[in-house]
């Protein structure tokens, strides 16, 4: 079976003054459909950069990215926007919710971005119902009208998860989703992600430096010195 998502020879370096600092140096990765892959690595090893490249938030210096066997890294702006909007669901360490919008509106945002005013307004009932059921699913139906400022960290991350799922993505990219949460809350969020991965057969790439979290994944790879290696952690 072909992998759902793969990268070939992905490289990226940043400039520090005049000298290029390589971050990724030929990353090859294959993720199967429905797989939960954890990428571990030290801080600054380039985990987030890899995730941004896969999520088309950034452009690689060289290498290719394939989704369902089709190359996606060389797409034009509008098609990249569409993939970011509908195919990839992104979850960040710092939640990144829009402070002006309520929880429900934040969840609605990917759909509001996809749809023009006319189709949005004509479908608003069904869209809203969908977003409400997502909030229900992450256990926040009672927080719909609250703005991010009025939510706890765990609640914000749940909203962010609901938002990542709103546009019906097939791939979820989570960048340290529990990195800003206490251990209990982090575990809850992680369990939620795990459940969603199973329920919806979502392909998930989870970047973390916490090995205990990585242990919940189907497979763990380690990013070190710009390259990926399969890694089987030994859990104490």
């Amino acid at each position, binding site marked *: 079976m072909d992998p759902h998502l793969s990268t070939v020879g992905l490289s990226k370096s940043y400039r520090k003054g005049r000298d290029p600092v390589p971050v990724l140096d030929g990353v090859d990765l294959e993720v199967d459909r429905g797989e939960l892959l954890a990428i571990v690595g030290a801080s600054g090893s380039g985990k987030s950069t890899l995730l941004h490249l896969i999520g088309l938030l950034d452009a690689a210096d060289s290498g290719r990215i394939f989704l369902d066997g089709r190359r996606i890294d060389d797409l034009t*702006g509008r098609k990249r926007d569409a993939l970011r909007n509908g195919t990839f669901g992104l979850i960040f360490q710092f939640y990144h919710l829009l402070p002006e919008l309520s929880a429900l509106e934040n969840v609605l945002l990917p759909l509001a971005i996809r749809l023009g005013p006319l189709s949005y307004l004509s479908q608003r009932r069904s869209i809203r119902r969908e977003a409400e059921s997502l909030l229900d699913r992450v256990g926040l139906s009672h927080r719909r009208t609250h703005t991010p400022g009025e939510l706890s960290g765990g609640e914000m991350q749940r909203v962010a998860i609901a938002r990542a799922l709103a546009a019906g993505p097939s791939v979820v990219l989570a960048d340290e989703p529990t990195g800003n949460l206490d251990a209990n809350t982090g575990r809850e969020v992680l369990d939620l992600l795990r459940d969603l991965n199973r329920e919806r057969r979502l392909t998930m790439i989870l970047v973390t430096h916490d090995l205990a979290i990585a242990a919940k994944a189907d497979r763990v790879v380690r990013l070190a010195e710009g390259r990926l290696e399969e890694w089987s952690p030994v859990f104490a």
Partner: protein
Amino acid sequence: MYKYLLCWRYLRTRYIALASIISVMLGVATMIVVNSVMAGFSTMMEERLHGTLSDIIVESFSLNGFNNPDEVLAAIEEAAGDQIDALAPSLQLFGYAMIPVGGGEYLTREVQIIGVRPEDRARVSEFAEYLVHQPREGQADLPPAEPTFHVPEEFRLNTYAGQVYQRTDPDDPFADILLEDMANLVPADGMILGYALGTIHRPESDEDLFIAPEGSKVILHFPSAGKTPEAKTGEFTVVSYFKSGMSEYDSMQVFVPIERLQFLRGQDGFVNQIQVKARPGADLEAIASAIRLTLERKWPTRFLVSTWEQKQGPLLAAVQVEQNILNILLSFIIAVAGFGILGIFSMIVVEKTKDIGILKALGASDSGVRGIFLGYGLTLGLVGSLVGMTGGLLFVRYINEIEDALSVMTGRKVFDDAIYYFPEIPTLVEPLTVAWIVGGALLIAVAASVWPAQRAARMHPVKSLRYE
């Protein structure tokens, strides 16, 4: 859809944006008020200028004028007879008026003496509309007067000599002397005196004091006809006043019977001006040039033909120039508002850097992000200019009430009608001007948001997400 949602949300949560709305609002309101007042002034002025002048004026180059007015009138009729409503010859000179102020003292003023037939003059201009009588005791308004130089008999009978005469037997030998005295005190020839010549305005009581009341004798000195002018003198009785509202005219012009003036100058039949009233809607410039061509063919280099606008050209142009300069200066206000929007928007874009990154991560396009801020600018401009428009129009509508209130508060008259000669501040709202101002403000608001919007659109999603 998210553009409208965020635009609306930013509008409701960023109160700093209100500052730019207010600056747009003030700019638009000021421009509307100033333009309406200026347009009101110039329209009112044009109306009065046109009212005192006829549509077209045919003048002779020489002050002495011409002795064949009938031929000239016939030539004008021939040139554009079907376009002409009425013609009125007049004799116009400069001279001095000596207005008695009591105790044998006189007030001497330089005046423009205009010899007319009042009925004719009334046909070619608004002359008759501007004629007023001195109000009687207890009358607040000036009663309108007929265009006539007729001196009522009561003026004579009201004089000291007249009082005595009424009690004297007509066969009394003194009766003749009394009659002579009366004729001396109240000359048989009437005069219509410029209102500002015959009155003094008292700012304290806001009253006009009549220094030359009706029935009083005014002496005019003017040059005689001929190569070497001599001073001539005529005595006239004030029968009514000319009050056009243009202080230049009201303080300069006196109207007297043309035949009497011709006689006193020693040139019967001479006139030096013909006033032409065109049919309503006629093309004045075309008629003027038709008359000019005909007259030049018959009598080369003797006549000057001009429309009322040409004659008042410099004054009207000056008003126009003033309005243009004011508009240029005031549009700087809106430009300042534009820079305000630019600054505030740049700030908001910086503040929203992370949100922009989030939107892009969620699939918002560059143009979509740009649209948020352009739409924001447009909305600010729209709200600002519509509120400004409403405020400006309300200000214009109630400008006289506002002026009264300001006068009460500051204790001095803001708009002194003694200086401007209009009882109220004249205003005229021109819809096209208002549309231009509102459109211009919108354009500036959008133009000022282009740069911040462009900056937002160009932001790199990863860098924006990491922005602290």
